[in-house]
Every structure is written in C-alpha cells, then in structure tokens.
C-alpha cells in the first residue's frame, strides 16, 4: 500500500459514509470500521516494509501544487514518523471500534472520525510543512465539533470552548513560526527535505532562530499541553467522547511534538541550545506539577488527562536534551503514549458508560464485576507508571539516559515524578477503583463482550510488543534521529571506550 493510498483511505471512507443515506446506521458503522481496519493493516504493512538502519525518507511520493510559492504535496516516512503512522492508524481503528454504539447522529460522527483519522495520518505523512499544518487543522476541527456535540459532563461547553481557543491560538502561533521560517530561510519552500538540505548549507541567522523557536515552542507546545499552556487538556478529555479523547490524546497531541522534532530541532539548533534549559524546566512543570495535580484528582478522566500531561513532560525533556538517545526516546514515548492514552481513555469510557459515573469516590471493587475491563485497566495503569513490558518504559528510560549528561538534576526529578508520583496516583486509582470491596452493588455484568475487547486487545498487544521488543522501533528511529539531533552522540570517556573495545 503506497502512502498516498494509505492517506486517502480514510477520506474515501468518509465520502462513502456521506453518500449512504442517514438511516442506514449499520452501514455507516461498517464502512467506518472497514476503512480504519484497512488503514491499520496498510500501516502495519508499511511499517513491516520499512527498512531499518536507513536514515533517509522511504516510500516518497511527490506532486507539485503551487510551484511559484514552493508548496507541494510530498509524502514520505523515515524513522521519526513511521512509528507514529502505525500508532495513529491503530488508535483510529480502536477509536472506531469503541464508538460502535454512538446513538446520536452516527453518520456525522463517523464522517468526522474518519476525517480526523485522515488528517492525523496526513499530518504525520506530509513532508511539506504547509500540508502538515493543513492536515493538522483538518483533524483538529472535528475534535471541537465532536466534543461540543457528543461530549459528556456538565462542564462540556466550557471545556470545548477552552480547548478550541487554546488549540486554535496555539496552532496560529505555530503557524506564524512556520511562516517566519518560510520567509527567513530564503529557500522559497516549506518542503522539509529541501529545507533541510538548504539550511545545512545556509543556516538561519541566530537572530531569526531566536524569533522562530519561541513561536514554535509556544505554539506547538500548546498543542501538546506544555506547562503552563496545559489547562485545556484534562477537562477537555473529561468532556470529550471516548473516541475523540482517544484520537486527540493519543494521536493529534503528538503532531505538536512531531513538528518540534522535525522543525525546531534541526532548523534552529543555536536557539535550541539557548532554550534547552528553560524547556527542561517547563518539562519538569509537566512531570512534577501535573503529576501532583493528578494526585489530587478524584475524577478518572481528569486523572488520566493529567497523567497524560505528565508523560508529555518526558518528551519535552528528551527534546531539550536534543541528542540521539533523547530524540529516539521522545519518539518511543510518543508511540507508546499514543497507544496507552487511547487504551486508558477507551477503557475509562467503557467504565463510565457501564457505571454511569467517573467519580472515583463512588466506585470500588470493579475488578470483581468487570474482570476484563478491570484487568486491562490495571495493565494500562501499570504501563502508565512505567512498568517494564509496556512500551512506555523503554521510552522513558531512553529519555532519562539521553538527558542525563545535560540535565542530571532534571533527570532525577523526572525519575522521581515518573517512578514515584506516577506510581502513587496510578496505584491509588487501582486501589480505589478496582480493588477493595464492591462499592456499588447495582453493577451487574457490563464487562466487555468478545467483540468489544478487540480494540483494547489490539492496543494492548501493540503496547506489549513494543515494550518487549523496543528494538523494532528504535532501530528504525535511531538513524533518522541522528539526522535531526543536535548532539550526535554522547562520547564515553576515552579510557573506558578503549577498555570496552579491548574486552571485545
């Protein structure tokens, strides 16, 4: 399956759903499911066909669009985005599965979901930054609509309002950064590959780097929930329908990081060095501060939302470290966290639907009545506090290793946040939610049936696969990370390297 086919599949699905009249609900569901399944399979095949150890782009496709302005359609994958594409399509499939019983206007819902999927895939696949931005916006708009129309909770309108403003504003600031890059580079293009070659010859002046980077950091950082631009996230996810929360927390949030990796790091190296420490401080804001906030949350979604922000802190720390290990770790976390966030929000959505509340204080002992969902939730929580075997662990570990040389203090804090604070709130959630005596006797049954388990099993399987065998990802990522990282490799002390050689 070529990349353009992969990208077009969800849009074709959306078009098909649009053409089927509104009362054929089963057909809509079926089309959406099949479309995302095909997309997922296609992404798996691309991932499998991707050759590890090559730094450059693979499966490139290119078409001119506005040659005068230098905009063109350019698809391609390298180590940085191949994992994200796979993750996005798996999450999209799972999100479609869990929205099986949307009752209100299913047709519109599925169209939006498919557009969102296509947008997310497009953002990851596009090498032309203009199209990257376009696809990102294309995916964001359905998010807002879905939250507003299908959302839950009393706070829904306020949360939707907030997330819309934040993300739109963030995207706008990011866009101004990209526009500045376009005008300052002099390359007359936003094509990443061309820009990379161009800027390798003529780097941006320090002054323009120092203008562009803060714009990118604040703009795209807001999309990720960089402290202190994070407060849209938790209430937003609490208000969003499951599928939207899964897609946004899992996939769309990563676009911001992806742009920072792709653009900020290789194109503004001097400014990045300059801003690394402040960025690491903000990352601690995510890890520690959001962790502490999560400690106090008594609502399952707010807890998950804040923990997801805490995980993003690790990404920013790796970004600040800017070396190969750190960058590889960032990509690993992005993939892992995408799967994990989708899994936890999907499960939490199921739980809320069955029990009718997401208030942890009102729940308890659910492992007894919901063995599958509860068990999967335990696994998700454990993965969330960095237990090995799940993909998050190698990612966080790699980031800590990568950042150790530059920011030992921050690594200590991050390890504290990840290992302990994360452990405390995750285990507390398990204890209060799943363990202990059954709090509400009225819950009978409601565990996921065999078919309902499919999305969760897919996500769990992917998490476990990348957790046990992170090499399958990191071998793909590392050569490409080498190209965008600032510090090419951390040199071991000479004597040690020599003795290590002698040992071989």
């Amino acid at each position, binding site marked *: 399956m070529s990349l353009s086919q992969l990208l077009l599949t969800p849009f074709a699905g959306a078009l098909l759903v649009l053409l089927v009249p509104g009362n054929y609900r089963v057909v809509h569901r079926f089309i959406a499911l099949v479309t995302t399944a095909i997309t997922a399979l296609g992404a798996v095949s691309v991932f499998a066909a991707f050759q590890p150890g090559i730094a450059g782009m693979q499966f490139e496709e290119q078409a001119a669009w506005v040659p005068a302005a230098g905009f063109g359609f350019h698809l391609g994958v390298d180590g940085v985005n191949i994992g994200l594409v796979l993750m996005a399509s798996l999450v999209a499939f799972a999100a479609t599965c869990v929205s099986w019983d949307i009752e209100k206007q299913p047709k519109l819902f599925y169209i939006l979901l498919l557009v969102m999927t296509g947008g997310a895939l497009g953002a990851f696949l596009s090498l032309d930054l203009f199209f990257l931005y376009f696809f990102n916006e294309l995916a964001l708009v359905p998010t807002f609509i879905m939250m507003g129309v299908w959302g839950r909770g009393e706070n829904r309108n306020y949360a939707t309002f*907030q997330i819309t403003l934040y993300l739109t504003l963030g995207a706008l600031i990011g866009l101004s950064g990209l526009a500045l890059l376009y005008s300052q580079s002099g390359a007359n293009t936003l094509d990443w590959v061309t820009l990379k070659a161009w800027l390798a010859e003529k780097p941006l002046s320090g002054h323009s780097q120092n203008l562009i980077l803060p714009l990118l950091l604040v703009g795209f950082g807001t999309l990720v929930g960089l402290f*202190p631009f994070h*407060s849209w996230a938790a209430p937003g996810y609490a208000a969003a329908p499951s599928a939207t929360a899964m897609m946004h927390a899992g996939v769309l949030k990563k676009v911001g990081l992806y742009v920072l990796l792709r653009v900020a790091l290789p194109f503004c190296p001097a400014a990045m060095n300059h801003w690394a420490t402040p960025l690491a401080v903000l990352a601690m804001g995510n890890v520690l*501060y959001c962790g*502490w*906030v999560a*400690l*106090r949350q008594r609502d399952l979604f707010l807890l998950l939302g804040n923990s997801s922000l805490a995980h993003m802190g690790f990404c920013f720390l790796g970004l600040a470290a800017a*070396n190969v*290990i750190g960058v590889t*770790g960032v990509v690993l976390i992005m993939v892992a966290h995408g799967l994990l966030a989708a899994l936890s929000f999907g499960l939490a959505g199921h739980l809320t639907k069955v029990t009718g509340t997401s208030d942890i204080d009102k729940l308890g002992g659910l*492992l*007894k009545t919901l063995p599958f969902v509860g068990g999967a939730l335990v696994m998700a929580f*454990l993965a969330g506090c960095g*237990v*090995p*075997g799940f993909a998050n662990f*190698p990612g966080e*570990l*790699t980031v*800590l*290793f*990568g950042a*150790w040389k530059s920011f*030992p203090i921050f*690594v200590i804090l991050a*390890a*504290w946040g990840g*290992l*302990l*604070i994360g*452990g*405390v709130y995750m*285990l*507390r959630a*398990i*204890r209060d939610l*799943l*363990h*202990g*005596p*059954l709090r509400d006797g009225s819950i009978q049954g409601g565990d996921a049936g065999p078919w309902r388990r499919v999305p969760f099993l897919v996500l769990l399987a992917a998490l476990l696969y990348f957790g046990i*065998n*992170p*090499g399958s990802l*990191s071998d793909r990522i590392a050569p490409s*990370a080498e190209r965008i990282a600032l510090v*090419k*490799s*951390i*040199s*071991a*002390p000479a*004597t*040690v*390297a020599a*003795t*290590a050689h*002698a*040992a071989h």
Partner: protein
Amino acid sequence: MDAHAAQHAVAASSAFSSRPEDLAWFILLLPLIAAAGIAFGVRRSPFLSSTLSISATVTAFILSVALFLAFGLGGYASSPSPFSWIHVGSLNVDLGLAVDRLSVLMLVIVTGVSALVQIYSTAYLHGDPGLSRYFGSISLFTFSMLGIVLADNLVMMFVFWELVGVSSYLLIGFWFEKPSAADAAKKAFLTNRLGDFGFLLGILVVWSATGSVSFTEIGNALGGNPTALGGLASIAGLLIFCGAMGKSAQFPLHVWLPDAMEGPTPVSALIHAATMVAAGVYMLCRSYVLFQAPGAWPAHLWFLGDITALDIIAIIGGFTALLAALIAFQQDDIKRILAYSTLSQLGYMVMAVGCGGPDAAMYHLTTHAGFKALLFLGAGAVIHACHHEQDIWKMGGLWHRLPVTFRTFAIGTAALAGVPILTSGFYSKDAILVAALDGGHPVLFGLGVLVAAFTPFYMLRLVIVAFFGKPRTDAARHAHEAPMAMTWPLIALAIPSIAVAWFGLGDFLSAHFNPHFHAHEGGGLFGPFNHAPLAAVFGTGSLIFGVTAAFGIYWGATTDPLPERLGLLSRAMRNRFYFDEVYEAIFVPMHDMVGRLAAAVDRWVVSGLGIRGAHGSVELAGRALRLLQTGNLQTYTFLFAAGVAVVVFVATK
C-alpha cells in the same frame, strides 16, 4: 554429586544448543510460556492452569540442576544475546544471560522453591475462584525472578527488578477485595519504587562514567581504571544499594514486608522469604565489582571522609537485623514473626556484603531460602489447620495433632537458630560472623552475635507457644494435619536445612569472588571451630543463651509475660517502633499537601487567573466595546469615516 549423570542431562538438552549455558534460555522462558499460556489459554480451568504452571517450573528446576551440576564448577560464561533490546547511540542494551556460579545457584533456589510452593498452593488455595490468576502471577513472578538472576547488564536487571515488583504486587493483592491486602500491595510496590528510583539513578551514574551497562564491561572498565567512577564512586554504590534496600526491605524501607503478609501464605514463602527479598542481596553480590572500586565522595561531601559505601551498607544491614529481631520479640501473628525474622536475616546478609563477604551473604541467602520457605509453608499449614487463625496465643498443643508440620517446622527453626553441626544455618551464619571479624568490624560482629541470640529466642517463643502447652481455642483443639500436597513440600524443604545438604557451598562461592581462594585445611563438619573458633564459639554461645531464655520465659505460659517486664519497650516493639505511623504522618501528607497545593494552583492560578482572567478581561473589553453598537446607522458611518480619515491621513503623510 553424580557428575556423570549431570553430563548425561546436559547431553540430552544440548540437542537444542551447542553450549550448556544456552540452557539458561529455556529455564528463563519456561515460566513465561506458562504465564502466557494461562493468560491466553487455560484461564478458565484452575486444574489445567496449575498443571501447566507446575510442570513448567519443575522442568525449569530439573534443567537448573543439570546446569548447576554441569556448569557450576566452571567459570563465568555469558550466553550470546540473540536479541538486542535497544541500541541507540552510546546506549546499548542487549538481553544477554550471565551464567556463572552465582546465577546457577540462584536458578536452583528460585525454581526449586517456586516448584514446591506451587505444589503446596494447589492444596492451600484449593477452591479459590482466582486460582488461575494465582498460578499465572506465580509463573510471571518466577520468570521475572529468573530474569534478575540471569541478567547480564544493569538495565535488564532493572527491567526484571520492576517486573518482580509488579508480580509481587499482583500476588500480595491476590485477595484484592480485602482492603488490607489491596493497601499492602500498594504499599509494597511504592516502597519498592522508592528503592528503584535510587537504583535507576545509580545505573545512570555508572553508565555515564563507564559508557556501558553490562556487568562484564563495567568490570573491565573498572579493572582497567579503578577510579573511572571519579568522585561519584561511593554515591553510585549507594544508589545501586537503594534498589537492594527496597527489594530486600532494609531500614528505612523495611515497612512493606510485614504488611506483605496479607498475601496468601505460599506467596509469602516464595516471594517474601526465599526469592524476591533475596534479590537485593543477590544484586549487591552481582554488582560487587562496583563496591570494590576505591570509594570517593564528591567534594562537598568531604566530611564523609574514609567511610566507604560498603561501610554504610554494613551499618544499615546490621541495624536492620537488630531492629527487626527486636520487633519480632513482641509479634503475635505467626506470619509477622516470620516476616520480621526474614527482615532480620536479610539485614544479616546485607551486613555480610558490607563487611566484604559477598560469599558469606550468598551462602546465607541459599540456606535461608530453604529454611525460611519451610517455615512459612509450615506456618501456612498451621494456619490452614486452625481455620485461618494466625495469632499464636490462640493455638497451642499442636505438636501431636500436626506431626509432620511440627517436625519439619522444628527443623526449620533449628536451622534458623543456627544449631551447630546439624543445620545448614549454623554454617552460613558463622560465615557472616567470620566476614564481620575479618572485615575489621568488631562492633558489627558484636551486633551479629546479639542478633544470633535474639533469633532462637523469638523463634522458640513461636514454637513453644504455638505447638506446646494446651490448646487455647477450639480451632487449635480440632486441628488436623494438612493434605499430602502440603506436607510433601515441607519434607522436601527440610532436607536442605540439614547440614550436609549444602556442604562445600561456602568454598564454592568464595572461589567465585576470589579466584585465588584456597579451601581451608581441616574443613568438614567441625571446620568452623577449627579455623575461626572465635566466631563459632560466640555463635554457639548466643544460641544457648537464646534457647535458655525462651524456655525460661515461655514454657507453660498462656499469656505473654514480656509486656509486664519490659513495659514501654514492649509496647514500642509491638508497634514496630512506630515506623509506619511516622511515615504515614510525614510522607503521605507531604505528597498530598504538595498535590493539594498544585491542584489549588491549577484551579485558582492557572485556570483561575490565567484562563478565567483572560476570559474575564476579554469579556470586559467586549462589554465596553458593545456600547459602540448603538444600532444607529449614523454612528457607524461616523466611525467608518473617522477610520477612513485616519487611514488617508497616514497614507498621505
């Protein structure tokens, strides 16, 4: 030992591979396969689950013994890693297996105890609805533990380290409906996490200094340049020790182990007596090379002077040993007495490592694994017989009602107390005392002797009160012996508690740590009295003292006389010296307070001032600007014209 038979066993298994050490892969993966099989296959049938799990572990045990016999006398071999875990830049982590005397010995212990405990569990947990989950978790635990044992680099060890923590969490919280069990599981995991935090930082320090995480390469690096760790040498050692402090429940992270007794008793036997808690000691021995490097502190810690990391480890170990022994004096719950005894013995082992005797520590670890598992399983049989009564004061007179249990329990007690000549415990404890003397730590030696006196005292208190005298409750009166599946493991575990079983192990281990080691002349059963009479005599003397005191105080007693005699001290012992209370009063509220503060800041400052403030100011501006919308056409025209005027004025300037 029949070396010939061992050769045969290896020949049989070498159909799979050309080298005996590759056998370790099968040993490692068998329990994982069982766990996966239970999780995805036979979950619905408890019988199939238990059969699968037990047969996998027994097979692993047989393979381990074969490996031990074939390989145990050789040197170190690292199994080639078919599997690179992660390779990025200068961070290279492979999944490789370290097969040497240390690890094969541990393989035998882990698989052996695990197999016996699982067989025992089929009877102990008969009819429990979660039996499949139980066996799945036990298999997972066995796998993780074997992973720790076989890991050839720090990162893999950390991975399995965490996995052991998780499976222990699952097993302690096996009866998760019980709030106390759920809380204990959480507490165990989090306390361990605190240790892991240090361990991880230690790994980072070592990696950044030596450029590698593999034990062999770290050893080579430190061998070539003993000061490679620079001023962080001692810090690195202590950070690594933090991990051991968590898993092996050393002061101040010891609080989780007694609570972990909320799990099923066989789990306590396997995890919280024989294997997981020994992992810390094992890890210290495995990474001993780090501690051999000359100690050095960062400049601003100059006041620590010549104190090495090992000294601190020894002090912590000795202190834990004494503290736990004192607490064990006044516990009434049969499992808690054993738990504190375990703590105390772990402290002993850690102290041995700190005194420069990792061989002694490993020796004691090995013997302790056998007799402590035996004691826990015996306690399980007693509890089972008394209908889940755990208070020893509500038992009594059980010795003739539970003959097998009593006899094996007595053997275990003797081994723990260190009865000379007859039991293995004596020799390993003696090795530790010798290590303390040889290492030049007379104070710690004295402390060790003191603990050696305390140990028989509290163990005999348990035996006398629970097994002798008159039955004090109906439950004890109607107790009857456990089924075969429970008694046979007891008998099997009694064997390694007897002196001859592990004979020669001390020399075997010493040779591992010191290539120039020569076995003492005049070894044999009376060896300790010959070459280190001081330690042996003091050990024996303290035993006699402890036994006498226990018989004097508790023979025929129906209530505990100690509280009256010791008063406040007894209360403190009974309440575990208030550690839990203090921790609960300090750490939990502290984190909660910070959390509350952060939540408040998020609510009032970030969302409040930031969001709502921005929202409010925008709205205010909107309200003000709204007044301009008079609805009057001419106002609009005027504003429009004024705007145009400004534009034209500026444009034509």
